[in-house]
């Protein structure tokens, strides 16, 4: 393609500018698109295809492409393990806790900071700050704070005669993990809600108040429905993130104690890198991929459909 620029026809064509000349136009398009295309195909598309391919083989990751074809055996083996069922259960628990606790909490805080209270700009900056810190910093910080022997959390609780084993006990590890996730991520969802709230015309809210609606009724019947698209997106992001949750779990618990906080990504890394069963680990990553894909398609088809049509508000048109 690149040689075309030096070809004689390119010079002979009488058109006034390269952008309107058909062949020169294609050269421009190709040259501008090529770097992104090469990078994306080589490091995003191809690896995902290879993951699919490798999932049908017994493979330790060495010696070129895999050769020991075993069909769907990796998948039947995976679905038969107890750990995989636990991974799915942990995913369900975290999604449920996020949707029932974390996101409503973020929404409430966003509504609070939408009021004219003094210092709200500062509150916003502070509440969002944990999102900027890396998962590793967050994880290490909380593994120290939640340490059963000398951690800060138990030292506070001991004043009230309470304590907890936090991450060290299979019964408390998931709520503890969720606590850390909330600390880190509620500010992000709060910011999304705040941005969504600012797109709602204040006239609507004021009109309701003049008609005598209480703050709760205004929220329930005006703000909440108009925030619908924003809320649906934040649920979507939360689920997609939880499906591939890795960093925090790896730092906090490595999936333990005895797999009680393991996620699919942790299981995959465990088999792929610690035990060099790359074929089997690829099967896990394929399941993660399909789970994300099916969720995204179903969610967009059935839940976000109304938003994409943009029937009642201008929110839909922005996408």
């Amino acid at each position, binding site marked *: 393609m690149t040689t075309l620029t030096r070809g004689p026809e390119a010079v002979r064509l009488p058109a006034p500018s390269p952008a309107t000349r058909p062949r020169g136009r294609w050269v421009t398009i190709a040259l501008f698109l090529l770097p992104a295309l090469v990078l994306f195909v080589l490091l*995003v598309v191809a690896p995902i295809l290879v993951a699919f391919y490798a999932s049908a083989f017994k493979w330790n990751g060495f010696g070129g492409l895999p050769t020991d074809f075993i069909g769907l055996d990796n998948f039947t083996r995976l679905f038969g393990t107890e750990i995989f069922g636990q991974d799915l259960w942990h995913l369900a628990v975290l999604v449920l806790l996020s949707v029932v606790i974390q996101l409503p909490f973020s929404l409430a805080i966003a509504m609070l900071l939408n009021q004219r209270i*003094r210092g709200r700009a500062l509150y916003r900056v502070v509440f969002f700050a944990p999102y900027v*810190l890396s998962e590793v*910093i967050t994880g*290490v910080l*909380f593994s120290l704070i939640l340490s059963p022997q000398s951690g800060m959390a138990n030292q506070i609780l001991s004043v009230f005669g309470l304590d907890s084993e936090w991450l060290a006990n299979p019964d408390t590890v998931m709520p503890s993990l969720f606590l850390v996730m909330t600390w880190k991520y509620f500010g992000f969802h709060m910011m*999304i809600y705040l941005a969504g709230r600012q797109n709602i015309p204040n006239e609507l809210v004021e009109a309701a108040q003049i008609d005598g609606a209480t703050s709760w009724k205004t929220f329930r019947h005006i703000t909440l429905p108009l925030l619908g698209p924003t809320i649906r997106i934040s649920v979507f992001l939360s689920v997609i993130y939880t499906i591939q949750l*890795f960093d925090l779990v790896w730092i906090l618990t490595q999936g333990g104690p005895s797999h009680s906080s393991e996620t699919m990504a942790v299981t995959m890394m465990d088999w*792929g890198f610690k035990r060099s069963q790359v074929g089997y680990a690829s099967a896990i990553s394929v399941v993660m991929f399909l789970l994300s894909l099916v969720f995204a398609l179903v969610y967009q088809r059935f839940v976000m459909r109304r938003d994409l049509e943009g029937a009642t508000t201008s929110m839909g048109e922005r996408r």
Partner: protein
Amino acid sequence: MIHRRRRTPRSSTLPLHAIAWVVGAFVLIPVVYALIGGFKTTSELSGNPFGLPRTWETDNYTDVLGSGTFWLQLWNSTFIAVVTTVLTVGVSALAGFVFARFAFRGRELFFTMFTAGLMFPFAVAILPIFVLLRTFGLLDNPLGVILTQAAFGLPLTIIILRGFFRSIPGEVEEAAIIDGCGPFGFFWRILLPMARPAIATVSVLAIVGSWNNFMLPLVVFSEESSWTLPLGIQQFQGQYASDTARILAYLVLAMVPALGFYAIAERHLVGGLTAGATKG
């Protein structure tokens, strides 16, 4: 009107402030605990977790700052973040320009392919990427992390930049062409300078994404000399497991660049993230 009056007196915002303070305490206490804890000895920390230190021990901080490893990791993180950002934004700007200003067959197909990349969990590709990087000898090479991060950063960056490029009126392009600009001249001399706010936003997102990345450096870098800060922190925790105060000092020092960057780029970061979220 009377109803509204009754709700506005200052006393009525007190419960709101109370809630905000409780949430603020939830957010800040861990960070403040780390900051002050770094000035204590570990033995004092277990007996006196909240109070100010009896004597302000600076050893934990000065030891970390005096060791070469912290600075090396800081440099590695910075280098990788900067090169990743330049590459991601440069390549995306070229592609976004074509997607925004050219009509050609297959455009929507290619664009959909890139946007679909937003939904691919990075973890899905990590094993093949590892094998691929090993084949090309890019393990323990910053390029292995940089190229991969850039590739996965393309979808969001292209979407945001394309949206911005499209908002620039066609008259500007026509005027540029009449004045003798080719497509690249228009892109380089007119479009990019006009798109500065959008470029700033996507750059900030790329920097933060690279800075905080853990999974990819974890599998690519085995030699300590190439470690980034997240890897260094994790290793430091393992090495000084019983010396809590020292780990706290390391954490606090590692937080400083991220929080400092947040202070400078808060507007772009929040704007970019919420725009990215609502466009996904």
